[in-house]
């Protein structure tokens, strides 16, 4: 019995009395080994991607298909979210701004919030849920039903058929969606500001242009590229590493959404520190 419990969880030592006791060193050691294994596999997948890049005849047509699905398929939900984000930012600005602050400042706050933060981050988080979950579930199912093994057995590279088109499509489409999200958010912010702040069109445009720097837009698009990579690469990796059965696919999908969302927030903090 003691031997069986030992095998069930190697992080626990089973003393003679039979009561489980956590061995911290073993627990940490196992965690470190798992992290190192993941890092090694991620590195290996990156290497495989670069090695498969010359096979552009395979990945290029599939990239267009994926880009269409990511871009057009996500447009409605991205615009809806950005519209609400712009409107709510404007309403909260109206609540917080008092008569001592010039009203055109609100336009600056709305546009800068959307361009620098809300547009890219909200779009990326939506894509993590919508596209990331789909990629992890698709590739995970292909893994457990041996479709990925079948590709390999035909002498074809699963990376050029499945991973590169998805990663490239998501990475390139996210900045495009962010441009639409920024524009929609600013538009809805303007509509809401006219209602809550009683701001004139002239003041809104003046405020927006007063605080706007072209670098902010480039920064927004630049970090969208990183977010796009996080939203696509992590789920592809998770899908490729799926364990057995439906439970494995479920775990991979959940893990993909959680990991890519956390990575987006971490990258947001890091890039803000480095680039602003």
């Amino acid at each position, binding site marked *: 019995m003691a031997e069986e419990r030992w*095998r069930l969880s190697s992080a626990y030592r089973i003393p003679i009395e039979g009561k489980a006791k956590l061995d911290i060193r073993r627990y940490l050691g196992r965690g470190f080994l798992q992290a190192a294994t993941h890092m090694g596999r991620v590195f290996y997948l990156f290497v495989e991607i670069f*090695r498969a890049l010359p096979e552009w005849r395979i990945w290029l047509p599939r990239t267009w298909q994926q880009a269409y699905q990511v871009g057009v398929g996500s447009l409605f939900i991205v615009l809806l979210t950005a519209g609400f984000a712009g409107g709510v930012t404007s309403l909260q600005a109206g609540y917080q701004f008092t008569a001592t602050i010039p009203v055109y400042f609100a336009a600056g706050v709305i546009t800068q919030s959307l361009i620098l933060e809300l547009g890219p981050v909200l779009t990326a988080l939506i894509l993590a849920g919508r596209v990331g979950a789909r990629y992890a579930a698709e590739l995970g199912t*292909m893994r457990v*039903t*041996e*479709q990925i*093994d*079948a*590709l*390999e*057995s*035909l*002498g*074809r*590279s699963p990376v050029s058929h499945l991973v590169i088109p998805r990663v490239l499509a998501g990475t390139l489409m996210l900045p495009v969606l962010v441009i639409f999200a920024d524009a929609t958010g600013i538009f809805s912010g303007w509509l809401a500001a006219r209602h809550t702040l009683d701001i004139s069109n002239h003041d809104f445009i003046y405020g927006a242009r007063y605080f706007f720097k072209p670098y902010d837009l480039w920064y927004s698009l630049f970090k969208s590229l990183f977010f796009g990579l996080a939203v696509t690469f992590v789920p592809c990796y998770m899908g490729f590493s799926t364990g057995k059965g439906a439970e494995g696919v479920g775990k991979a999908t959940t893990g993909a959404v959680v990991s890519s969302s956390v990575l987006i927030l971490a990258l947001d903090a890091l890039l803000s520190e480095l680039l602003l």
Partner: protein
Amino acid sequence: MIRLTGVHKAFGDNVVLGGVDLNVEDGETLALLGPSGVGKSVLLKHINGLINPDAGEVYVDGQSVPLLERKELAQLRTRIGYVFQFGALFDSMNVFENVKLGITDEDFSNNDDYCRLRVQECLDLVNLTPETALKFPADLSGGMKKRVGIARAIAGQPKYLLYDEPTSGLDPVNADIIDALVKKLQNELGVTSIVVSHDVRGSFRVGDRVALLADGKIRHVGPPDSFQDSGDPAVRQFLERDFGQ
């Protein structure tokens, strides 16, 4: 020729293959028998490099499979057709596209006329009608999926065919059809085949030689007749149900 020497494979603490030695001559069909979960599919995946051994050698046409570079391995795989247990058809593609993917020569796979004729030919070889080409895997029965899997495996005109439990999950009538198909392909295409199965009678029908994998090792290998005369307890126990020995 396929040659495995002292192949060991373990997944964690679970030793699946504990020193497997096996030779398959050109043109012959070897049926590999064994209880479920004994490592037959794992052994098969060593041959086309989907799994690498922990120790031992795997040679196909004199090339050491685990030591091949990426391109060499891809090249070798074009000579080995692999029929997966559940078909492993790409569910986003129809039957035509699935079978076309099996045409591994780039010059041919870019030629639409050749592809159309070759897919038609392969579907015909596995007794499927031309109308099947437009169906998706979700619309096919289990037996049809297996036949499409076989059509995809032979589309690239391989020298070797590896069948992973081609009759599992099928009723006796469909299992007989698949067994007859394996024999037909061997006779018409002259391929070297390994058929993994736990169906004793079917294996005896299709195999020129039969091997039994048990406890991580090949316990017996030889013509079906010699198999029935074996004194090995593992062999006798395995045959007991079908032949009442």
